[in-house]
């Protein structure tokens, strides 16, 4: 479904991504793990059309989206939940969700709004509250719900468990599992590697902008040198 081939990006002298490649097949949960500064956010941002790419090809469902604008990529069915959530803090929960569905028709949008209210009771309770007043966990749910408002077939998440208490992390991974059972494809950048590997089908390990390991989640979990490759020992 999503194919990234040979992605390279430089910021001035810094090589943020070096020939990074990955594939995500329909209906999979794929994890992207690795230490801080590895380029995971740059990778997602490049796929989503926000960051410039120096070389490489990205295809989504056979369509070349390498240099497409973010709105075109969203309309193709690929949504991104950005790092740090980036919810619109001066707008209410409802308004945030509506913006998420800006590409839809009014009726479709209304339908999805109702769906989200059911799926996220916590948000339903704070429907008219300004998003800036939400707690970390609520904000993360809002960010995911907002991305779901465009009814994407594939959804990318950048560090969804960042700054969340363990019980909320559970919630997030529950959501990810639900997404898969609803037929959606999920690519998740996560810092919580062990947790990610337990939830994912496959995973890639990114370090200093390059893919240094990949395989099924089980395979990677069994590797004893995982901690080392993370912590740079």
């Amino acid at each position, binding site marked *: 479904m999503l194919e990234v081939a040979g992605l390279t990006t430089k910021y001035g002298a810094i090589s943020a991504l070096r020939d990074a490649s990955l594939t995500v097949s329909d209906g999979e949960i794929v994890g992207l793990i690795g230490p801080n500064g590895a380029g995971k956010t740059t990778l997602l941002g490049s796929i989503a059309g926000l960051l410039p790419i120096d070389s490489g090809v990205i295809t989504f469902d056979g369509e070349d989206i390498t240099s497409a604008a973010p709105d075109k990529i969203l309309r193709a069915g690929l949504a991104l939940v950005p790092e740090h959530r980036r919810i619109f803090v001066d707008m209410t929960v409802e308004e945030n969700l509506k*913006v998420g569905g800006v590409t839809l028709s009014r009726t479709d949008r209304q339908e999805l709004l109702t769906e989200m209210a059911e799926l996220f009771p916590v948000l339903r309770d704070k429907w008219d509250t300004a998003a800036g007043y939400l707690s970390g966990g609520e904000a993360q749910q809002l960010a995911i719900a907002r991305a779901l408002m465009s009814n994407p077939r594939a959804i990318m998440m950048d560090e969804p468990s960042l700054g969340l208490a363990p019980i909320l992390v559970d919630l997030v991974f529950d959501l990810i599992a639900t997404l898969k059972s609803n037929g959606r494809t999920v690519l998740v950048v996560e810092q919580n590697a062990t947790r990610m590997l337990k939830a994912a089908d496959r995973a890639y390990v990114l370090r200093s902008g390059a893919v240094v390991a990949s395989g099924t989640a089980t395979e990677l979990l069994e590797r004893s040198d995982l901690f080392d490759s993370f912590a740079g020992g």
Partner: protein
Amino acid sequence: MEGLLQNVIDGLGRGSIYALLALGVAVVFGIMHMLNFAHGELITIPGYLTYWAFNNGWNWFTVIPLIVVSAVLSSLLIERIAFSRVRGATDFTMLLTSFGVHFIVSAGFLLYVSASVKPIPRPGWFANTLAMGSLNIEIFDLVVIGVTAVVLAGTTWLLQRTMFGLALRAAASDFDTARLMGIKSDSVIRGAFALSGFLAGIAGIFWIMREGQVTPTAGINPMLQGVLAVLIGGLGSLRGAVLGGLVLGLAEVLLRSWLPLSIQNLTTGFVFVLIALLFIFRPGGLLSVPQVERV
């Protein structure tokens, strides 16, 4: 007491126009992070068209839509020709670009029309007053306040209740994330300039009526009032812009009424002294939005 009430209404009358101008400037600032020093040209250009129209037998009924439409079109045209090419540039560059555009337009009119003042007839009811007890209220002020209230209400509805408004607010809040939601950069920027032009157009109707004339430099004063009002209210706040405009108008009128006759013509100077004092004690403006520094 009656004098005060009269002054307040007069002040609100002026302040309403400043509020509309300020809101137009603030809408563009929210998205582009640029104070549009060419905003006044959105009155100059319709002003000259108005002069031409009256010379060709138009009347105020037909001129009013002309002003609004030409303001919107001018705003979009300027965005297309100049601002679209400096998107993402430094604040310095964008400010100078807008200043350059202001200059091109005013110098253009100087060059191709004339330096002389072009008179514009005022509507018949302009000088009418409404007598209420011992008060003599100018109808013009009431009309301005009324129309502004309606336009502000309409703009509020637009921003709060329509998808267009939501998209604008989202883009002003976080431009990149708004793009991630599927909002197109071009569309939302043009939308902001169109809205800004509309607001300038409404303000322009009354500005032109009140001035009764147009000159190549007609745009300087409205632009300055709009930009100052935005600062007074607090950069980054739409409500602040409206409040700033009203405060500016009130300050102007009330100050003039309180100053001794001999120095009344220095009112503008004193208004600026007040503004300066405001900035010393409340540097961010009345409704300042705390700007968080990104480390």
